[in-house]
């Protein structure tokens, strides 16, 4: 798939420089030695992984900015908690459920056991096992982050955390095993490079079910179909969060090349960076222009969502599109957001940060257009993947949400919702200017 013959000469020089050996010239080989490949690929996983880890901060800031000031502490607590729970669950069962013992091309799941990180001397393979685990773990955490934004400002902390544990330990790994664990979806030729479906739509479906079962925030939808906007507390924080997510996405998509040991890999990762940036930029520009035309004013929060929708859309295939195609894919992601956000409101599905349009709908769009640029993919396999993941994640998430609702309850009391979750659940206000924290001597 990735034969770049024109790089042959450069390859020789690079190999020789890295290996420091004249023999490389004599062999006229483009291959780097195995240990060099191992080091570079592990490095890609680690760099990509910590970029994606920082996306947890991006989600936290985006959400902190788009909720009201009385719920900011709660949103911050949920974000650091969900990242941590995902990190634990993906070690305890998640990784092996997704990657270990999945029957090739037909498997539906792996084995739910803790991930064994081999001793340094025994760490064979084409990259370090720990670097791979870390890289895959932060993707799992990103999935959980998507859910927290949608259902903000009214969900209780503990049921959310229990849901997160099940999502990151069981639901996400099972559907992930179908494709990235080389199971049945991979067998039928489904293609999802960095997770438009596996990560973003999965988070989006889980969020959608949560939003429906939990209900809208108090006062969001009035009589006669009236929609009452609830503006967020900090546009600067939401903007910072979006930039952090955009920044982290270079690790998300670039790292998903999964190897850095050849000239071809290095070129691919770079091409992915270009397409990822173009798609996000197009998403922003389209949403700014559309809101200007539709509403006579530009909505900054939709511009931020536009960036993320462009990023989600290009994530299913950031390598094969030409720059023009990347712009088109990302731009339509931005368009989806501008139209889907008010549409969800008409359906009375209260999505505080726009995660459903951004992650679910733009994720489906990105997944379905892969065959336009990648001849290895088919519309049939893409549709099967989107539908299968959609059904599995929706049904399993809905069951978990409904059980939680029937047992411990998922929603705070109406009084607590009005007072703010910072007071009711956390006991720490984010902005305590008028409380003791601000005014005491």
């Amino acid at each position, binding site marked *: 798939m990735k034969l770049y013959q024109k790089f042959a000469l450069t390859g020789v020089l690079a190999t020789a420089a890295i290996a420091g050996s004249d023999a490389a010239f004599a062999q006229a080989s483009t291959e780097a030695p195995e240990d060099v490949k191992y080091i570079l690929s592990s490095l890609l996983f680690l760099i990509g992984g910590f970029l994606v880890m920082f996306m947890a901060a991006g989600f936290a800031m985006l959400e902190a900015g788009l909720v009201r000031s009385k719920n900011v502490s709660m949103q911050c607590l949920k974000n650091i908690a969900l990242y941590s729970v995902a990190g634990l669950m993906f070690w305890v069962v998640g990784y092996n459920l997704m990657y270990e013992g999945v029957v090739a091309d037909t498997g539906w799941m792996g084995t739910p056991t803790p991930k064994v990180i081999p001793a340094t001397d025994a760490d064979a393979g084409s990259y370090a096992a720990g670097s791979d685990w870390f890289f895959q773990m932060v993707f799992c955490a990103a999935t959980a982050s998507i859910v927290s934004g949608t259902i903000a400002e009214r969900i209780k902390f503990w049921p959310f955390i229990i849901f997160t544990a099940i999502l990151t330990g069981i639901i996400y790994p099972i559907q992930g095993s179908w494709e990235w664990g080389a199971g049945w979806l991979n067998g039928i030729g489904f293609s999802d490079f960095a997770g438009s479906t596996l990560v973003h739509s999965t988070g989006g479906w889980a969020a959608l079910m949560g939003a429906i079962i939990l209900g809208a925030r108090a006062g969001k939808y009035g009589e006669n179909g009236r929609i009452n906007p609830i503006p967020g507390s900090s546009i600067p924080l939401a903007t910072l969060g979006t930039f952090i997510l955009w920044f982290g996405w270079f690790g998300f998509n670039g790292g998903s090349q999964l190897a850095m040991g050849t000239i071809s890999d290095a070129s691919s990762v770079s091409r992915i960076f270009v397409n990822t940036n173009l798609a996000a930029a197009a998403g922003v520009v389209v949403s700014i222009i559309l809101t200007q035309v539709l509403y006579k004013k530009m*909505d900054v929060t939709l511009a931020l969502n536009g960036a993320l929708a462009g990023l989600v859309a290009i994530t299913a295939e950031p390598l094969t599109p030409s720059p023009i195609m990347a712009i088109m894919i990302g731009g339509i992601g931005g368009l989806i957001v*501008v139209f889907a956000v008010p549409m969800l409101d008409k359906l009375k599905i209260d999505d505080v940060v726009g995660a459903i349009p951004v992650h679910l709908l733009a994720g489906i769009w990105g997944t379905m257009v892969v065959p336009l640029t990648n001849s290895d993919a088919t519309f049939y396999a893409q549709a099967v993947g989107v539908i299968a993941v959609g059904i599995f994640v929706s049904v399993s998430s809905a069951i978990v949400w409904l059980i939680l609702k029937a047992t411990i309850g998922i929603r705070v009391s109406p009084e607590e919702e009005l007072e703010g979750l910072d007071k009711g659940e956390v006991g720490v206000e984010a902005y305590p200017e008028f409380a003791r924290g601000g005014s005491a001597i």
Partner: protein
Amino acid sequence: MKYIISIIKPHRLEEVRTALSAIGVEGMTVSEVKGHGRQKGHTEIYRGAEYEVSYLPKIKIELALEDKLAAKAVETITESGRTGQIGDGKIFVLNLDSAVRIRTGESGEEAL
């Protein structure tokens, strides 16, 4: 003694303060407030849905003055606070019964 409450546009505060200082007003209390008059706020759009902003930001200036200076102050605020557009605000004048300077215990006009 008069107690003068003025509601003005926030961006006129500096002009009003300067003008009041020039006629000898030495102290004032300023607060950021919200409210509306006859024009009833305005409409904004957030994520595709319109909503009314019923309360606009204003500045409230409170002055306690001897009668002679009070009349001059009202005139000064009217001139320096005016933009000619709707929403320039209002001035309310109340009779003030007493005043006390906390540090010294002085009362009446001496306390102003």
